[in-house]
């Protein structure tokens, strides 16, 4: 029937514009060019060299912290949103509207706010005779940037799942003698897992690969894996090694996706 063929244009599109380019990158990842192009895992091994591997681990670490913070901020917010009548409008204001300002401009604006000496925040703090903060150039600034940028991607899926929980289920939980806390732990939380998983995916993965945030907010003092991949592709024209780095990264991403899929095999949370 027709509906089974509806995805065909997309599948063709995906094969041409997603799979083939990726395959080409992968080929670069497992070859080297020393006079002639040949198969080699040399670059893959090099990706585990401490300089690069540490950056990778650090990226994962920061991305992980950012994801956890996003989750902590987003979950209560999503819960509050489900109680709001005009939640959908609010969600647009959270999710779509901020992106209408160019990402680079928004990140620059954080500098204006957070700079140590004459940043907006510290000026206010100083005016109130409060201690000022120094955050620009520290890992905290990188995490702040990640949380800022990816928080909406955590709020939306959790909200979507929460808003679809059948209110009768919640009443049933009360009816069966659950306290508010028990109800949350035993009913709401398990039911919202798909949204949480989806949120984690949408925050953790892009957070690993970001390179503008560490450059600007981290004052370029720390390299994350995104910076190194960009550097290999653009600065040293070493696509072979750049591809190897992304290959290693991709494997890690796929493994984490596999783990997440185990928790939520239906990928119901594929909902943005």
């Amino acid at each position: 029937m027709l509906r089974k063929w509806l995805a065909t244009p997309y599948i063709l599109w995906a094969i041409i514009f997603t799979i083939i380019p990726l395959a080409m990158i992968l080929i670069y990842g497992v070859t080297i060019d020393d006079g002639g192009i040949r198969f080699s895992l040399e670059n893959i091994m090099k990706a585990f060299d401490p300089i690069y591997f540490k950056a990778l681990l650090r990226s994962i670490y920061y991305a992980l912290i950012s994801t956890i913070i996003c989750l902590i901020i987003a979950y209560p917010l999503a819960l509050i949103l489900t109680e709001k009548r005009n939640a959908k409008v609010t969600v647009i204001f959270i999710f779509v509207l901020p992106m209408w300002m160019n990402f680079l401009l928004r990140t620059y604006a954080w500098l204006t706010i957070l700079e140590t000496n004459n940043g907006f925040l510290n000026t206010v703090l100083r005016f109130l005779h409060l201690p000022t903060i120094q955050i620009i150039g520290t890992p905290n600034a990188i995490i702040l940037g990640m949380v800022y940028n990816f928080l909406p991607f955590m709020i939306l899926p959790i909200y979507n799942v929460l808003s679809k929980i059948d209110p009768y289920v919640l009443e049933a939980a009360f009816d069966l003698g659950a306290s508010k806390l028990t109800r949350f732990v035993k009913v709401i939380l398990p039911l919202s897992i798909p949204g949480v998983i989806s949120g984690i995916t949408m925050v953790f993965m892009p957070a690993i690969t970001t390179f503008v945030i560490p450059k600007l907010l981290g004052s370029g003092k720390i390299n994350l894996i995104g910076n190194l991949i960009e550097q290999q592709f653009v600065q040293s024209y070493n696509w072979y090694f750049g591809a190897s780095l992304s290959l290693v990264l991709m494997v890690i991403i796929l493994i984490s996706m596999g783990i997440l899929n185990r928790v939520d095999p239906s990928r119901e949370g594929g909902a943005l």
Partner: protein
Amino acid sequence: MIKSGLKKLYMGLVFIFLYAPIVTLIVFSFNDSKSRAKWEGFTLKWYANMFHDPVIVKSLYYTLIIALIAAIVATLIGTFAAIGIHYMKKWFRGIVMNITYLPVLNPDIVTGIGLMLLFILINLKLGFESLLLAHITFCIPYVIISVLPKLKQLTPNTFEAALDLGATPFQTIWKVIVPEISPGIVTGFLLSFTLSLDDFVISYFTTGNGVQTLSITIYTMTKRGIKPEINALSTILFAAILVLLILINRRPGKNNVLLD
């Protein structure tokens, strides 16, 4: 009472966090200094000068055209794809969904260079077409993941019911399925448009022939810093979409259609 106050406070704080940089940017678009580091008094000159730089004007034009076409095409392909995926066998759906997530999860630079390699391979000169193809490519997954949940919410047998009443599969999709999942489609369209607007890395590697988007123009202003006119232009764009969203959602008699 205290509880609802706390909730409002919490929401307020998150909103402050999300909007602080945007408000800053808007405020500084009225700054007399070229720098975003120092406030030197109020001015409207950046708004007046905004359209003097032909490069900015041209990139604004391309940005909007590319975003519009990319969003429309991505929404079309993505919506049909989502319907197809929804009715697929489970194992196949799993594979297709994993492919769908690939561009979302890949570093932009890998996607960008990969696409550039592809365009070279198929001998397509970089320019408007290649840029458009690239944008459609990274937009489709977002349409699919916006539309799929709506399909899951359809009452069972909706598709069959329409066929049963004599609608051809095409009529069914157009007259029944599409209207019912329209909130997801609108979300997907809006997301596509927004992402297309915001992208730099993929655009840079897939464009040519003088076709530049606003993002490229902004990112490449490395020699002299970002022109303050850009802040003014961004403010206007932001205000425009804000007004548009408010208008759409205030339409009398209609429940808001966005992001159901």
